[in-house]
């Protein structure tokens, strides 16, 4: 698990983003949290990588997870 690179694009007002981050923390996963609110660069980066304008977007290595999809996150982390 330690060698996976996990990035989450989120906004500070998004409850489900918070839940996703808490879930990752509980699992002992280290992640980079990128706040897209008000950042054109990060918003563009998120859209380029995922085609998504809805948060959270989670990138595990180069795999994209849209929303708090626990099943998919578990699978990609294992």
């Amino acid at each position, binding site marked *: 698990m330690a060698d996976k690179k996990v990035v989450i694009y989120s906004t500070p007002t998004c409850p489900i983003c918070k*839940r996703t981050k808490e879930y990752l923390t509980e699992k002992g996963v280290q992640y980079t949290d990128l706040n897209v609110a008000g950042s054109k660069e990060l918003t563009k980066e998120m859209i380029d990588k995922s085609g998504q304008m809805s948060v959270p977007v989670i990138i595990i290595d180069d795999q994209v997870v849209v929303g708090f999809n626990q099943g998919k996150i578990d699978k990609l982390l294992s």
Partner: protein
Amino acid sequence: MSDLMIIGGGPAGLAAAVYAARKQLKTLLLSKDIGGQVNLTLGIENYLGYQFIEGPELIDKFQSQMNQFPIDQKIGGKVSRLEKTTKGFQATLASGEKYQSTVAILTTGKRPRKLNVPGETEFTGRGVTYCAICDGPVFTGQRVAVVGGGNSALEAALDMVKIAEYVNLISLTPLTGDTLLIERLKGSQNLSIFLEHETERIEGDTLVSGIVIKDRKSGKRQKLEVSGVFIEIGLVPNSELVKGWVELNQQGEVIVNCASETSVPGLYAAGDVTNVPEKQIVVAAGEGAKAVLQAHRYLQRLTV
């Protein structure tokens, strides 16, 4: 085979699970997520015991309380079919797995209502969103449309006028939300309100670029250039699993009596999916608890 199957993991389902465990019922919780609509709720100031708590934090507390008990949980899969069997009920997941129980409680809640216009599904997550508090900040400095005329739409518009370049509020009817919110909106410089306008379609290439609206009186159409469309037109009950064999009201809510019983013996329902008035966390949790206690009595009657 379980004694009890709970379908749905929001406040009603989680309260039901805790009560079921305390009655020592062999319980299975099936849900696509834990928390349901509370996951989309930022601040809660009316759940007893907490003067203020965030949605995800309250759900974590519910979940850790539930996890003190030996409850079988299948989280992440969607129940695609629920049926009555000779011995009780059977749920089938989208993956094909099947689960049986003697009694069942439906706590599947509600989901955002869709407009059902061209472009909506295609652009969901690509400019179309049903969670304004989540995705609002993504559209900082952009032009957006908010569709709806009730409190959720007005709140979304109020949040967005602060950060968006321009906000178009499009309502099929006159505004139906609180006067206080309407008054607050009226001072905004970067806002247009289109009353009695129908949203006809959402357009774009890979992402949303505009929305076409039609004046219901004059029939005149116009295109508004926006990159975000916030749809806030209410909620619909997740009652498809029991449609056709359990009594529903006109809104599609499961009809329950004061003992949480549906029209099918052994099948109970609680929370936002039901016709119980007032969709509140505390009401849903209370109804979930009551449904289990009633289901427990039903099980006792079966065994004597």
